[in-house]
């Protein structure tokens, strides 16, 4: 049954999901844009970030520490993964890169399953952000409002790093032409390592921030990965603003369709992706040649 209160809370759900997808997709898209590697383990990193935060929360009882711990852990995982595996795949075909990151995602999921079993784990929201808040037309869980705010801040930080720092300038230049950056005497491999770390951290951060909203299972990364792909196709590969825009669009499509019939959420998402592919093959904010 349609009510305005229901509609508004779904719109808000869409905003929360969209913000989250925007953050995860930004991580994926800057990694792809800079390194030329599509990381199929990105969903698994989202999942792992959640679990890392869960471990910290279990030990300290502090949600803030859990967020910091989860994000930093994924930064380290990303850097190590780039250094040990990904680096050896820059000169190999795209297909090999897909295969190896896909394999790594399975290893990650199964390691988590081995340690934590398939039973779901929960991280409660911090005490300050529990309960519900009135939004005028409807009441809404306070923590979900906080998620939008937290993710917005994270996106701003990412924006600042990308557009206002020297590293960001190198990364953006690398997205356009990494060979040229290399020949300018900049150690691209160091930059690649940092970018992979930051991208992984974005996924991990989203994972722990999202943990109080859903319960953690080793398989939560898979659905997120698929949604992230749709976001990137809609927004355009290698485009940070595209990831944000695509994320919000995808979030709203999923939420609003779910209100009418959850079974059609993916169908609508896919229809939107097809429409973009037909009308703007390189994504809403993408540029030709970035693939």
């Amino acid at each position, binding site marked *: 049954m349609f009510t305005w209160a229901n509609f508004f809370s779904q719109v808000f759900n869409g905003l929360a999901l969209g913000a989250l997808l925007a953050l995860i997709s930004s991580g994926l898209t800057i990694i*792809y844009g800079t390194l030329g590697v*599509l990381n199929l383990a990105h969903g698994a990193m989202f999942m792992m970030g959640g679990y890392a935060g869960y471990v910290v929360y279990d030990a300290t009882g502090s949600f803030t520490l859990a967020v910091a711990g989860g994000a930093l852990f994924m930064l380290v995982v990303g850097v190590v993964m780039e250094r040990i*595996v990904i680096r*050896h795949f820059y000169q*190999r075909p*795209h*297909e*090999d890169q*897909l*295969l*190896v990151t*896909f*394999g*790594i995602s*399975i*290893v990650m999921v*199964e*390691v988590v*399953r*081995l340690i934590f079993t*398939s039973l779901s784990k929960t991280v409660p929201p911090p005490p300050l952000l529990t309960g519900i808040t009135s939004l005028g037309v409807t009441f809404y869980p306070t923590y979900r409002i906080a998620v939008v705010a937290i993710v917005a801040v994270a996106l701003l930080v990412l924006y600042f790093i990308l557009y206002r720092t020297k590293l960001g300038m190198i990364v953006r230049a690398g997205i356009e032409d990494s060979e040229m950056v290399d020949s300018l005497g900049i150690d691209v491999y160091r930059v690649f390592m940092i970018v992979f770390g930051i991208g992984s951290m974005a996924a991990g951060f989203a994972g722990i921030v999202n943990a109080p909203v859903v319960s953690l299972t080793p398989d939560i990364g*898979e*659905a997120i*990965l*698929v949604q992230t*792909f*749709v976001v*990137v*196709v809609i927004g355009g*590969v290698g485009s940070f603003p595209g990831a944000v825009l695509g994320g919000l669009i995808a979030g709203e499509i999923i939420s609003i369709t779910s209100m009418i*019939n*959850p*079974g*059609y*959420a*993916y*169908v609508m*998402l*896919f229809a939107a*992706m*097809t429409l973009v*592919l*037909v009308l703007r*093959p390189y994504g809403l904010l993408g540029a030709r040649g970035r*693939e």
Partner: protein
Amino acid sequence: MPSPRRYLAELLTALGLLAAPFVLPHLGLAPNTANRILVWGLFGIGFDILFGYTGLLSFGQAAFYGTGGMVAAYLLTRAGFPSVWGALLIGMLSAAVVGWLVGLIALRRTGIYFAMITVAIGEVFYFVEFNPLADWTGGENGLPGVPTPSLYLGFTTLHFTSGWALYPFLAACYFVGIVLALRIVRSPVGAILSAIRENPLRATAVGHDIHSYKLTAFVIAAAYAGLAGGLLGILQAFMPPEAFIFDTSGQLVMQTAIGGPGTLFGPLLGAAVWLSLQDFLQGALGLGSAWKLVLGVVFVLLVCFLRHGLVGGIKDLWRLLFERKRAETEAPEEATPIRAAPDSMPARAREGDLQAGTILEAKGLTKRYGGLVANSNIAFTVKAGELRGIIGPNGAGKSTFFKMLTCEVPPSGGTIVFEGQDITGKGVTEVCQLGLTKSYQVNQLFTRLTVRQNLTIAALADLRGRFRLDLFRSLEKIPGLQERVQHTLGLVGLTARADTPVSVLAYGEKRRLEIGLALATSPSLLLLDEPLAGMSPRERVETVQLLKSIARGRTMIVIDHDMDSLFELVEWITVLQEGRVLTEGTPDQIKSDPAVREAYLGGVHA
């Protein structure tokens, strides 16, 4: 007359399938595992044509596996369809049709975009199967009660029930599947699919409609997946909804990569390794759910260190052990000098060919890249049978001019008329089919294929047209193909290197093959973009001889910086400077033209 060696793969497969029920039980393999390996192997044949041969890595094959399986199972369980064979066939055809529709969308993009889109499409099918279509598919319960097939032989009826009794039926399906797939990869279509994997740009430029061929590979893969899905329902007497999940697509990709893509048998080997390891780890070692972790680690290590899977690894080992000896005994190959071929292979006669008069006319041709004007208002006319040279300092716009003539890039303004037909705005494939093609400044070859395969691919475009579905035709049965390839090999002096992979050719040989690729399409107008670039002085002399011999009977336009060679070769020269035609004339006129000197030397007069 079919030679036994040609059908070796088919023969060995038949023997292997016949022997399996007698050998495998002694190795501790359960009949059900053997049957599952066959279903995955069959699923993988189609996927290997898509991934291993065409180079398209799809993570959404579960969609077609599930579709074929669900359609067949629905017909047999709920619709009361009497024939198992018929249901399997309809399931397979439905998967193929769905594959065609999905392919139209997914193939709009290549590379990682393609991979991402197939992942998304796979998920959509999963959700559609679970929710909107739950009334037909049984939702999360699947469709139980799928019957097994039987075969009435006149005097008795064979019932393929389960275990080893079902095995002959699945083995027969696999055998038919592999025989057809072997035919496909040996057909002209198969050759073109590997060309697409190696170099889609050149496959397009020699005149193949690669989009249609990719779609063909996609539909073939979907059809195999659909049949395998139907067999899954029969094998389990139940069509599981899990056939649609992402893990199914993932497992297929991993099994194929483990076994070795591009071999057709790789997926079967990969499935055998995967499923028997799973049984072993879960059963004998009691690892429970950790088996997948072990397989994941094995897979990552395999991708890192064994690039072409187990089959590739075995091949490499074989080469290491046996081929070194052979190489030592073989006489070192002399570089074959180019013999001026007596018959220079004139261009094939096409409808609309001109014997005399203007073959190419460009008017007002302009190309702007943003603010940069690469070509400005070029007027250019070439007579049929002419041998024209184009020179100009670096940055004069020569290569851009060529790209517009071959329709690789659309002009910003102006028209191009070839043999009286306006070709402005046509595609490079279409123009090549009309008889206008180019050899590239930077080699565009099919690197992992042999010299002969390279030329075959180019010749096929001319002999078969831009697209044809002769999936089961043997390459040898195409009239004129062997002669064309052999002749081109002779012309470019690569006969002795015919079966050498391009990756090990010397640079000069690659340059000659580059010309050979253009030549094999039998163009009536051949453009050559710096054919002499990077060659040694001796190679230059030889190549000029080659160009002279192929110029008989066709029109050619040559760009080069080697003035001495060019002046010797061509009759008439056009000089480009800063995107405009500076002057035209005979080599002698050009040599003594002060304006040309100024263009090259920047106004420094002697």
